[in-house]
């Protein structure tokens, strides 16, 4: 048993750079979430046309406006990221607020769509297999939008209280990654549910 010095001698290595832990963590979360969505999307595709009774996907209307709102919120959040990177806090607050607004419009649109499906077309989650897969897949995405909006709103509150500064850029960008993921998932859900599956 040789004795060991308590500390280890230092060698100079000035070019030691590591990836940001926030980004690595968020990318890991996104990979995990993608697997959840994959399972639900696979279930949706597998069960298309297998309902033995009740309404079919033909009753769906393509939510063009909703989709446009959600996708443009990604542009708004990119502009917000750029604004805070350059320290323009008022512009950041404006673009961030617009992102939240577009997200809320998307959720409201989903609510209106679901109200029509439930009351006019009589499609609920227990009506038939299509109802089960549709509401669970679109609902899973809507849940992610809600979680995203809660986090975006938290940042908005801190912004309005004047607590968000340029040095928080990286945290803002990590959060924005999540929002981009929610948007990207919508592209998949939209294609599967409203384009291919109808």
């Amino acid at each position, binding site marked *: 048993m040789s004795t060991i010095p308590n500390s*280890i001698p230092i060698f100079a290595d000035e070019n030691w750079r590591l990836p940001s832990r926030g980004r*690595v963590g968020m990318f*890991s979360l996104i990979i*995990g979430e993608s697997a*959840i969505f994959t399972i639900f999307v696979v279930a949706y595709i597998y069960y298309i046309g297998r309902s033995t009774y009740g309404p079919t996907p033909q009753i769906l209307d393509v939510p063009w406006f909703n989709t446009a709102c959600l996708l443009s919120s990604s542009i708004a959040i990119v502009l917000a990221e750029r604004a805070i990177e350059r320290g323009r806090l008022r512009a950041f607050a404006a673009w961030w607020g617009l992102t939240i607004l577009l997200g809320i419009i998307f959720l409201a649109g989903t609510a209106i769509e679901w109200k029509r499906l439930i009351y006019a077309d009589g499609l609920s*989650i227990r009506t038939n297999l299509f109802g089960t897969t549709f509401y669970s897949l679109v609902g899973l995405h809507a849940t992610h939008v809600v979680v995203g909006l809660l986090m975006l709103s938290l940042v908005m509150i801190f912004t309005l209280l004047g607590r968000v500064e340029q040095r928080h850029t990286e945290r803002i960008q990590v959060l924005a990654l999540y929002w981009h993921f929610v948007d990207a998932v919508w592209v998949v859900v939209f294609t599967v549910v409203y384009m291919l599956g109808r």
Partner: protein
Amino acid sequence: MADQTFPIPATVDVSRSRGAALLEWLHSWVITVDHKKLGILYIVYALFFLLVAGAEAVAIRIQLAIPHNHFLSPELYNEFFTMHGTTMVFLVGMTIIFGFGNYLVPLMIGARDMAFPRLNAFSFWMSAFGGLLLYFSFIGGFGLYGMGSAPDVSWWAYAPLTAKAFSPGHNTDYWAFSLIVMGFGTLGAAINTLATAFSMRCRGMTLLRMPLFVWLMVVTSGLTLITITPLTAAQVMLIIDRYLGGHFFDTQAGGSATVWMHFFWIFGHPEVYVLILPAFGIASEVIPVFSRKAIFGYPAMVAASVGIAFVSLSVWAHHMFTIGMTSVSNAFFALSTMMVGIPTGIKIFNWIATMWGGRIRFATPMLFCTAFLFQFLCAGLTGIMLAAAPWNWQLHNSYFVIAHFHYTLTGSFVFCFFAAIYYWFPKITGLMLSEKFGKWHFWLFFIGFHMTFDTMHFLGILGMPRSIYTYEPDRGWNTLNMIVSVGGIIQAVAVLILVWNIVDAFRHGPLAGNDPWDAWTLEWSTPSPPPAYNFETEPVVRSRRPLWDIKHPNDPDWKYER
């Protein structure tokens, strides 16, 4: 502001009672965000449930020791084998890998904590709460049989048995909800491990200088991200079916029971690799140290680990050969399963090559790792046998399958984690475990293991199906079942020796010192147990064996490694 120090008046300690001190000590464990304390919590939690699930296994084996036995009721038997499987996989396996991961990954890469300490605490308490919820089922609510509502649908919970019509009461709900809760805990732990290994390494600790245990934790965490989440998704579907009247697995409405099987095994098969990869990591740390040689073929070991992770994602349907898939699917899953043998073969040869010509010390950790090598080889060979679809048709759901996967999970996973306990206990507590008790533990467990699981292969070939409550005396299974049960009890005694060894070490174990095994990774450069900040100064490494470099300044590793 935890690192601020305040002047404490000397009177405080005098006036405090022992009860208050105990409360404060317990409180410090509840609020802790220190990776070492959380790692210890994970490990203690896993060991506790190892005893619980082990007791369940012993009860199952007493029930099966003789034909027409009535030691357990049929209902309780179903609950016990379900809970044994669920507990061993989720409460013992998943927690102990993240326990050692939590404790060792920051120390091995020269970091002061995990990347997200509070997420770390959250992950542990989610897992702990999930376990509590699972075991609350024994006393909470009223089940189908009015005698506790522990899950009784077996750990793979095939549809349509889990449908509301066939599984009334809350047994299945406890199972699904507790696994969802634990799933979030595991997801958090995996994210944290990845972020720590990629973003918190000390200077000079390049990816290809990381200790193999860290590498295997990285691969395991990456695999966890994409395997635990499908389980969570499938559980959500099950909950939707049971509570909201959905039709995912409702064959009357066009749903499919086979889809549950696919979703479950998309999780279930990579899950066994999630468990076994950290065990490989432990073997890759212990075998070189006790052979006094650097690990043979480090890059090949890393590549093989990543390879196993990728191959493991495409093999799940080998659990489903008997449901009647197309011959193309059968061929695909048989071949992809056999491919797992290539990277695992590389690893086994590398471990043997590490031992080859080394000065081997058979201390307890090395004994467990040596047995692991042999048993893992056997497990792999029966795995290849079961991967052949026709052989599988014959032996599916028989005791041969039970024997095969207990060879991997007990013979490999548990053996490696016993090695880990003996190897890192001195670091974690500063005290040595007794070698005498350790040898008793090893030999009894080894003998019990082989009595139980070698014999199970024969029972399977003789046609004994798994999960049966009892059997007729004229099947020719009586003697073999008795041997299996006696082996199970010997293993239980061996585990109790481990518990006694740990208790005894706390009473009068010799002090370990910083580096009792003369090892080479960074955790051994800290005092035992390590201080809250781990390293006084951030270490700088230049090779895969930083402590070798310090101990042998005339012959450091970095002269030879590129």
